[in-house]
């Protein structure tokens, strides 16, 4: 082996060694944000609804007046950082507008109940929600829910519904809408996530 070959080996070893020694500093620079880290997947928020047995089954559907019904509602944060959420609970009949998934707009209905909470990335929030129809009437092919109780609080709703022979039901639903706080606009924005619990009013008492 010639002296020139030894020189090349020493230069290569020197460069590799210096790079290895400096690698923790490079990692720090990347973590400090000087070089943005590669994206670790699409950020999203998860909204789910479970039945009273804490599984995705046995959801309340046939609802009688005065009876109490339970559902679990939960949210998972996968946006890559802590997030501040607001969850609206709305009550609609068969003709009220649902949120528009294409336009990303919420339902125009006034919220009845709401939750506010902050979550760390990867964390989940869950709450048991109880509801009952406390004041309702059925007359022929017309029904009217005047009052709904959510978690022990009464709300005047005054929602009529016409008998739908195709279902067949007096169709109502509880709509859960997820809103996310946007720090740049300093306001909550609809996150284009909702779940709807279909209900059929069977009797008034």
């Amino acid at each position, binding site marked *: 082996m010639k002296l020139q070959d030894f020189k090349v080996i020493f230069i290569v070893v*020197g460069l590799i060694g*210096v790079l290895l020694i400096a690698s923790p500093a490079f990692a720090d620079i990347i973590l400090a944000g000087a070089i943005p880290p590669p994206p670790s997947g699409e950020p999203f928020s998860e909204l789910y609804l479970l039945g009273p047995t804490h599984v995705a089954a046995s959801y309340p559907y046939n609802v009688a007046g005065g009876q109490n019904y339970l559902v679990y509602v939960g949210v998972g944060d996968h946006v890559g950082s*802590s997030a*501040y959420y607001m969850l609206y609970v709305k009550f609609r009949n068969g003709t009220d507008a649902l949120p528009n998934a294409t336009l990303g707009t919420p339902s125009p209905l006034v919220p009845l109940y709401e939750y506010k*909470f902050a979550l*760390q990335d990867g964390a989940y929030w869950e709450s048991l929600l109880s509801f009952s129809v406390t004041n309702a009437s059925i007359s022929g092919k017309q029904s009217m829910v005047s009052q709904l109780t959510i978690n022990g609080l009464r709300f005047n709703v005054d929602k009529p519904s016409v008998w739908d022979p195709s279902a067949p039901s007096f169709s109502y639903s509880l709509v859960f809408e997820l809103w996310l706080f946007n720090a740049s606009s300093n306001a909550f924005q609809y996150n284009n996530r909702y779940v709807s619990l279909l209900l059929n009013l069977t009797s008034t008492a």
Partner: protein
Amino acid sequence: MLVLALGSCFVGLQVAFAQTNSTVVNNGLQTANSAVEAAFNAVSAAEKAGANVTNLLAQLNNAALLLAQAEIANRTGDYNTAVARADSALLAAQPVTSSAQTAQQTAAASSQNAFRSTIAYTIIAAVVFVTVLFTVWRWVKTRYMKNVLEAKPEVPG
């Protein structure tokens, strides 16, 4: 006539009282909302600076829960509860903001110190490594040259 006049006064007072109530509640809710949002922004900044925000978020969630209860009470027309809960939310949110700001400053200082230490250790380690490598290179070069100079030429045949 007098009864009518008194009645209209009473109705007027009731309307004025309801408007005052509504204004007080709305102002209280707006202030509480701003305080909780400011607290969240402070916690978020602390998290970005590298602080552990688990406890701060738990405290923030207490404030957010009170705020949601205030909003719901306002919708059901229970204005006294709405004002009381909004005030409680405000009181719960304010310490979160100050704690989060402190946590952010501590985390930023700590990460800056760690970064400086890493850079300093990297420079020292690189200088030592290059010096050792250069010394070895000098030794290898000297031995090579010595071997070349001491080598005796072989004449074939």
